[in-house]
């Protein structure tokens, strides 16, 4: 009888470990890592992330819970800015551990809400159902002391090669600054836009000058093209700026 019970328990245990949703360990992807791949149901149908979005930039946003105040302010802000992100060739994807039916109800409600004097907009980015916590674990979004079941406010900015460029986490009580996230995307795109690869100084904004990684021209280049001098200037001995 005892043996039977043990065998039965073993069977249950092994079924549990094989049959239950796969991912056991939580891991935060680091800068340079390939973005973890997932397939999931969303308000825009089933998606494969990031593969479905080809050579676009992708931003994966996690939030704690639908129908809560800060999350609502964030979703409305993202909805109002979705055109700006589309112009930057960015695909927004939003995930929480809520179920799809909750996402659909919340989305509908947000699409009827006037916020900060702006008319409601139809949300055209997907809200992902992660009620089994697979994505939460793949992206390290469950910060156990705060919550074992609800994501913190995560941001993963992923480049066209599907590598992680930026990782941000904000706490439950503080809404993210979507203007800052847009600034970061524009800065990343500007940094990579030249063959020379620019470096972006602190507090960089669109139109500001950029840094170059080393002294920008040789004696010979200067002799061939004396105007080159006027395109650059130095600050101290360690910073060479290129005028934009």
């Amino acid at each position: 009888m005892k043996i039977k019970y043990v065998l039965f328990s073993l069977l249950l245990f092994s079924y549990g470990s094989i049959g239950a949703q796969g991912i056991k360990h939580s891991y935060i992807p680091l800068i340079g890592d390939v973005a973890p791949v997932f397939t999931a149901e969303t308000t825009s149908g089933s998606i494969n992330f990031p593969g479905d979005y080809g050579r676009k930039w992708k931003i994966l946003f996690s939030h704690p819970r639908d129908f809560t105040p800060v999350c609502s302010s964030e979703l409305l802000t993202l909805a109002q800015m979705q055109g700006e992100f589309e112009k930057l060739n960015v695909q927004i994807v939003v995930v929480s551990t809520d179920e799809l039916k909750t996402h659909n109800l919340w989305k509908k409600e947000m699409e009827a809400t006037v916020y900060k004097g702006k008319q409601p907009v139809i949300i055209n980015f997907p809200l992902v159902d992660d009620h089994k916590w697979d994505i939460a674990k793949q992206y390290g979004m469950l910060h156990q002391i705060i919550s074992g079941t609800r994501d913190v406010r995560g941001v993963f900015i992923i480049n066209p090669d599907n590598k992680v460029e930026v990782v941000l986490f904000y706490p439950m009580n503080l809404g993210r600054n979507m203007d800052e996230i847009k600034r970061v995307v524009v800065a990343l795109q500007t940094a990579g836009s030249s063959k020379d690869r620019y470096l972006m100084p602190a507090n960089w904004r669109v139109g500001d000058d950029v840094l170059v990684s080393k002294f920008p021209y040789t004696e010979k280049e200067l002799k061939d093209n004396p105007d080159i001098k006027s395109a650059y200037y130095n600050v101290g001995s360690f910073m060479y700026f290129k005028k934009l």
Partner: protein
Amino acid sequence: MDEIKRTLIALQTASGKGNDRYLMPANWQVGDDVLVPQFPYTEKQLKENPDLKLSYYNVGSYMWFKKM
């Protein structure tokens, strides 16, 4: 560094004065209104202090803002 300063002030503002706890909406900047976690007053409190109503407003059914 502007965003880091914004974040710090937002966290300090969220912990409020006394027992008040606020939630900070997306893109919050100094001077902007803040969120409160639930409907901000009872019928009884409103009867005792009708001005209470002037300090708060709602956006949809899920967001109650406190004017700053």
